[in-house]
């Protein structure tokens, strides 16, 4: 009984701190800007940012509805995230368990991995133009590389006895992959998803540098080139909130999917 109340108290405390810490930042922001010591073009007040946000909600930005900007960005991230995860996990698991597959991909992918995506933008423009394909491919590449590394490391964490047990119960190669290697790697894959989502949103802004007139990245870049700092802030906070929300959603699912993690 005592342990239950202690656990409840710890949970409440956690929640309180998680809510109070952003409020404190918000308060500090309000105080600093209210004293007028900072030029609004450097750091606008929360009120001014909120006004710009409302303006975008009502009138859109640069002739396009705000939710259209959000939707286009989410679609780019979504397509890249799903395809990048699928391919990255598949190749990562194979690299982790089959030495020859690892040998095949080792140099090409480890060579590409340290290249900053921004450095690839000029090449991608030359190869794939400035349309959707370039933007999605840029995000896809980052997601793919992150998921591949995580899935590979995860598949290596599979216990030898678990593999042997499966073989002794007549599991064929693909069954071992499906029922033993993949579940063993899942905890690390789920962590990879959270990292990849954060990175995907980062790359989104860079990808939307590639031209076009839609997307949250476009809003931020366009506003900043016209010194409309309040709109830059509104766009940044919106991306941040999408990141926070998606991270919580992935973490929630991950606790349910890898329910066995840390229980033994």
């Amino acid at each position, binding site marked *: 009984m005592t342990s239950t109340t202690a656990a409840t108290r710890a949970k409440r405390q956690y929640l309180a701190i998680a809510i109070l810490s952003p409020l404190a930042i918000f308060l500090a922001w309000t105080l600093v800007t209210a004293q007028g010591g900072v030029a609004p073009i450097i750091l606008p007040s929360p009120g001014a940012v909120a006004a710009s946000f409302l303006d975008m909600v009502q009138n859109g930005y640069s002739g396009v509805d705000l939710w259209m900007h959000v939707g286009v960005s989410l679609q780019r991230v979504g397509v890249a995230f799903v395809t990048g995860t699928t391919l990255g996990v598949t190749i990562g698991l194979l690299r982790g368990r089959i030495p020859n597959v690892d040998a095949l991909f080792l140099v090409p992918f480890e060579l590409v991995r340290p290249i900053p995506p921004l450095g690839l933008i000029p090449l991608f423009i030359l190869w794939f133009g400035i349309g959707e394909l370039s933007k999605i491919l840029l995000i896809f590449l980052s997601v793919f590389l992150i998921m591949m590394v995580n899935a590979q490391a995860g598949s290596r964490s599979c216990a030898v006895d678990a593999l042997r047990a*499966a073989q002794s*119960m*007549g599991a064929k190669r693909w069954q071992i992959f499906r*029922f033993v290697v993949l579940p063993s790697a899942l905890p690390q894959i789920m962590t990879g998803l959270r990292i990849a989502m954060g990175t995907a949103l980062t790359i989104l802004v860079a990808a939307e540098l590639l031209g076009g007139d839609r997307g949250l990245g476009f809003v931020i870049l366009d506003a900043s080139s016209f010194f409309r700092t309040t709109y830059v802030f509104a766009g940044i906070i919106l991306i941040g909130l999408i990141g926070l929300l998606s991270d919580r959603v992935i973490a929630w699912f991950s606790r349910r999917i890898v329910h*066995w993690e840390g*229980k*033994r």
Partner: protein
Amino acid sequence: MSSYKALSVVADQPFETPEPNSSKAPSVMNPVLKFEKVGFQYDGRPIMRDVSFAMQPGEIVAVLGPSGCGKTTILNMVAGFLDPTDGVALIDGREIRGPGPDRGVVFQAAALFDWMTVADNISFSLRCAGRPRAERRQVAEEMAALVGLTGFEDAYPYQLSGGMRQRVGLARVLAAKPKVMLMDEPFSALDVQTREVLQEEVLRIRERTGCTTLFVTHSIDEAVFLGDRIFLLTDLKDGAFDTFSVDLPAPRGNPENRLHPAFIRLREAIYRRMRH
């Protein structure tokens, strides 16, 4: 009470110290498992040479010896995790080639699949063989009942105690109906009470299923209580090991057997043999 009486009668028999027999198996036809001059080298270093033995259907052989004597190597060769570098290992007269469902392994640390329920763990071999869901569930429930896990079919392994996890490990092997069950020090990490209950359980299951069992252990008590024969290994580099026959009253799973004079005599004989 009746078992206690039986025990006191036997205690009146003249005291005999069992001598180790020759390492040849009793000559019965069609052994389930047969090693013919099996040798194993690791990195060019010989671990064992010319090891021969045979196991009869329904027999429990306890392989006893200190760490590093090669007992797990024997088990791994039967399981197909290791290939002999010399000689042949035969199951039902056919050479062993890699792991297979005719040889089930109960591991020291259970090695259950934490992501599957107890029922899915138990019926895993049927899933691999493409059996339908209803049949898998039925077999899982039967096997859970056999090892005393009824009511835990939908639990996950991490919700079970160490002893219950080993029961799952036992059930999933039995579900595959193997020709030989291989047990690799499966109870060594459990507390004494749980270990003894599970030893009795193994004997009770043998009565019910007739499953041939190779049991690797470093505990003399465990070997004497469980085994029909005991292979005492010290150094397998010349292929020699001592074989002891266990002669304890049926039902073998009776815990009173642990106090039987024959049990105590054999334990002492093995102990003296180990210490020379």
